């Protein structure tokens, strides 16, 4: 087997993935040739063609493509791992599991800080990393490798697409600040991360939504919209529980660019 491999593919341009995929097919040496790259075909090209294939607007709905992947007979058509479409994955995780994990995240960070402002900052940083990754993933999976370049576009992307993927629903509202041009607000009656959390009175206005604010900042900053994002409790009349508002204050350069775009 090893001999056969060496014979078919020049070792100079054999990527580890390619070797793996042809190995996994076992004894069907004849077929191996069909899927291995032609000589001189570098892995980079393979990647490009794979993504181009994903890009096409008239691709079949994902569900059907996933179905094809499962079929035993057809599995080999994605002999190259790069050809495989990104699977949607499971849409839901256990809320309890998440709640315990998040609770531990908060508790751990609490042991690392002296004051509440610092705890808020650490939670935000944790969220930032999530936001950066979520942007990357969703641009590829939902937007066909495009990302929003306009202010309102990216905001509604967060409000609907990101929120739906992370929390299973669209955010309750997206509003523009009345006092300042550069302020926008995403409000949620009950933020998923706050579902089981009661903040003690001595912690003042601390809101674990700082984590979500971090996610929003991560998405915005990596999409080229630097902003300061904070989470606040806002009391609603006639309700016992306040809602959480994620306040987004864009950097000056973002608004200037937006004005140039017209």
């Amino acid at each position, binding site marked *: 087997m090893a001999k056969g491999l060496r014979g078919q593919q020049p070792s100079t341009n054999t990527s580890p993935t390619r070797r793996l995929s042809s190995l996994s097919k076992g004894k069907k040496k004849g077929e191996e040739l069909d899927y291995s790259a032609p000589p001189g075909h570098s892995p980079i090209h393979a990647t490009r063609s794979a993504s181009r294939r994903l890009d096409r607007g008239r691709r079949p709905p994902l569900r059907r493509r996933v179905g094809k992947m499962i079929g035993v007979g057809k599995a080999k058509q994605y002999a190259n791992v790069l050809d495989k479409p990104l699977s949607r994955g499971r849409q839901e995780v256990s809320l309890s599991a998440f709640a315990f994990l*998040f609770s531990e995240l908060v508790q751990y960070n609490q042991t690392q800080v002296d004051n509440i402002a610092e705890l808020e900052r650490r939670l935000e940083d944790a969220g930032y990393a999530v936001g950066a990754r979520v942007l990357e993933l969703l641009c590829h999976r939902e937007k066909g490798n495009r990302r929003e370049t306009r202010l309102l576009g990216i905001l509604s992307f967060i409000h609907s697409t990101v929120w739906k993927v992370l929390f299973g629903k669209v955010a309750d509202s997206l509003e523009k600040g009345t006092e300042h041009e550069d302020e926008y607000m995403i409000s949620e009656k009950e933020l998923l991360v706050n579902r*089981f*959390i*009661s*903040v*003690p009175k001595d912690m003042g206005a601390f809101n*674990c939504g700082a984590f979500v604010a971090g996610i929003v900042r991560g998405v915005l900053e990596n999409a080229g919209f630097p902003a300061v994002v904070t989470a606040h409790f806002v009391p609603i009349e006639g309700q016992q529980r306040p809602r959480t508002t994620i306040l987004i204050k864009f950097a000056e350069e973002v608004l200037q660019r937006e004005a140039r775009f017209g």
Partner: protein
Amino acid sequence: MALAAIYSLFIINKSGGLIYYKDYGSAGRTDTNDSLRLASLWHSMHAISQQLSPTPGCEGIDLLQAHNFDLHCFQSLTGTKFFAVCETGAQNIETLLKVIYELYTDFVLKNPFYEMEMPIRCELFDLNLAQVIQKDRVTLLGR
């Protein structure tokens, strides 16, 4: 004017300390020291009843019946005990205690600001508990 079937609710941790007490209109006695003492007394009695049991596998007192009240007790697997003092012959208290246990696991144990085995001070737990008790009353009146 006790409306409810349930007079008061206690939650005690595994070492017998009272971590939650709520009164729903029992006559007079709301002294904190009294409730603390009662809670630890109940904890010991519960333990003694396990020792006294002639058959193995006894899990302690579930129900204590008196002339003018019933005491229902539910012990979770971790040793936290929930017990409610109710009217005599009150129905479905076991279910109610299990619902309260569920609230405890949700709004107390998943709260990062709660310290294990310490008194429960969680706004959301209070809110949801009040709702459950309220609902219980409504069904009681509807009967």
